């Protein structure tokens, strides 16, 4: 098998994949890059079919056809709002395939595996199963079928350590005693790893989802790569490793954008304690520093007077499906001769790049979207900032208050602009639980309520009286 020619052909397929990924550096070529990556995968499948005598073709083809039809139906039906939940679900599907493959390999060719390939199979088994269950929990949280608040059990870490100890023990047994009881050990690892995956992910809350979903992206790839070592298939190893690398990059980017390290994110999150005796009533809409009679009047005035506007979207925009109205308002302001830009924090939303996709869906030109580093210097010279469904990412407490959950997190400097219009559901603090001093500022105009309604009103009134 290991002829030089075969190696070169494999390398060509890997280069094709890498070429596809490198096209993701600019949006104009990304679509082609996606097709090239798909081609690389097709080549890999064809190579395997050519080199190995795959038996039971009718059965194999039935499976492939079923998966293809299901995948296609779901892919054309899913809406952009469901994308985060869908991607998490697919990470899970990748995990299932990985642990099934590892299970079959470990339990049947007991003699054929070397210690290294067997060890790798055990890793594939455990990581695949944990990825599967953790992804299902993540998907449930992202689809709002599960509560997105972090859940911490008593002895949470203890349970996780117990699972880890069992997996290590059963793994050693499987490594040393491959002949007898392999199916039982392997099944045990799958079950316990799946339990560990659930324990792991229920503790991660809503706004930390970008980290979790990126991490699961990496582990799905890692599980595939380990299966590749077990099967001694270079293509499977290489493709899996590239995915693992991609997930790792995104995980690190997300952590850095929150100024938190990975272990702290996964250790669970305790929101800032609410002030003593604070009942939910405490968070009833409260009046800003200078209460205008009609906040909409003040907001419309601020927008009309402004020559430059920056819009800061957050997860609340996604929840309220306000992206269409926001883009409509941006277009309106632009036609009135104003400079309109969007500023997006790296962890806005529930997954990396979430806001960009929603705004693209609403037909916004991506040249109008700016990353934090590129636009933060411009807030001070901007007349009006419109915050739509974002709180923590514009919370100046991150810079001024020591020792709170968001201290040191890089934020968008919205508070430096002349006026800040906030379209949030209510005055409650964001995910971090840290009160936002911006709301108390004299610059702020607070429009509480559904963001889609608030922005609609702005569209009507800014457009109507222009």
């Amino acid at each position, binding site marked *: 098998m290991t002829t030089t020619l075969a*190696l070169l052909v494999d390398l060509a397929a890997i280069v094709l994949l890498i070429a596809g990924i490198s096209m993701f550096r600019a949006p104009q070529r990304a679509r082609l890059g996606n097709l090239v990556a798909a081609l690389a995968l097709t080549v890999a499948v064809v190579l395997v079919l050519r080199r190995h005598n795959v038996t039971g073709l009718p059965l194999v083809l039935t499976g492939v056809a079923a998966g293809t039809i299901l995948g296609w139906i779901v892919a054309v039906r899913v809406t952009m709002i469901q994308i985060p939940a869908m991607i998490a679900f697919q990470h899970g599907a990748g995990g299932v395939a990985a642990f099934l493959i590892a299970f079959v390999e470990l339990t049947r060719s007991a003699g054929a595996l070397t210690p290294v390939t067997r060890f790798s199979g055990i890793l594939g088994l455990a990581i695949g199963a944990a990825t599967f269950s953790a992804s299902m929990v993540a998907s449930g949280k992202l689809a709002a079928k599960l509560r997105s608040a972090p859940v911490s059990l008593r002895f949470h870490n203890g349970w996780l350590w117990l699972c880890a100890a069992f997996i290590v023990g059963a793994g050693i047994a499987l490594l040393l005693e491959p002949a007898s009881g392999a199916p039982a050990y392997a099944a045990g690892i799958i079950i316990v790893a799946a339990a560990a995956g659930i324990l792991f992910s229920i503790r991660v809350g809503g706004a930390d989802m970008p980290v979790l979903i990126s991490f699961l992206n990496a582990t799905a790839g890692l599980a595939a790569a380990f299966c590749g070592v077990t099967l001694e298939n270079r293509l499977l190893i290489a493709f899996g490793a*590239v995915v693992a690398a991609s997930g790792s990059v995104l995980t690190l980017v997300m952590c850095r954008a929150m100024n938190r390290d990975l272990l702290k994110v996964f250790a669970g999150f305790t929101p800032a304690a609410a002030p003593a005796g604070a009942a939910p009533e405490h968070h009833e809409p409260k009046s800003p520093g200078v209460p205008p009679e009609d906040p909409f009047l003040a907001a419309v005035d601020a927008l009309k007077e402004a020559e430059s506007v920056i819009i800061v979207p957050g997860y609340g925009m996604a929840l309220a499906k306000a992206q269409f109205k926001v883009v409509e308002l941006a277009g309106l302001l632009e036609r009135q001769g104003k400079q309109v830009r969007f500023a997006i924090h790296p962890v806005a939303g529930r997954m990396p790049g979430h806001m960009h996709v929603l705004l693209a869906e609403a037909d916004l030109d991506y040249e109008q979207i700016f990353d934090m580093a590129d636009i933060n210097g411009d807030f001070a010279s901007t007349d009006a900032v419109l915050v739509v469904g974002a709180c923590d990412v514009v919370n100046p407490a991150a810079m001024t208050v020591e020792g709170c959950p968001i201290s040191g997190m890089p934020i968008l400097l919205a508070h430096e602009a002349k006026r800040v219009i906030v379209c949030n559901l209510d005055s409650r603090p964001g995910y971090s639980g840290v009160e936002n001093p911006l709301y108390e500022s004299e610059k702020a105009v607070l429009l509480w309520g559904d963001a889609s309604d608030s922005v609609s009103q702005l569209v009507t009134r800014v457009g109507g009286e222009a």
Partner: protein
Amino acid sequence: MLDLAIMLAVLVCSFIIGYLLISRVPPLLHTPLMSMTNAVSAVTVIGALLLFAVETTGLEKALGVFALITATFNLVGGFTITDRMLRLFRSDEHHQ
């Protein structure tokens, strides 16, 4: 032994190259990137096919077919969704 060395080299090199390349993807494309690499992780379809390359029992066939279904679901779904997403990205400056 040589095979093992090659496999490890492939693993490490692919990870490093992937890491370097993906560090340069702009945040604008992070969601499509994750969706696409998610589809690439369905390369486990190769593994599922290889299960059928040797004699299989009934249970192994059943598990293998299930692995095939989940992997192809992931593969076809992932690339299709990515394409749908990327079609949404537009810029007047780059459209002729």
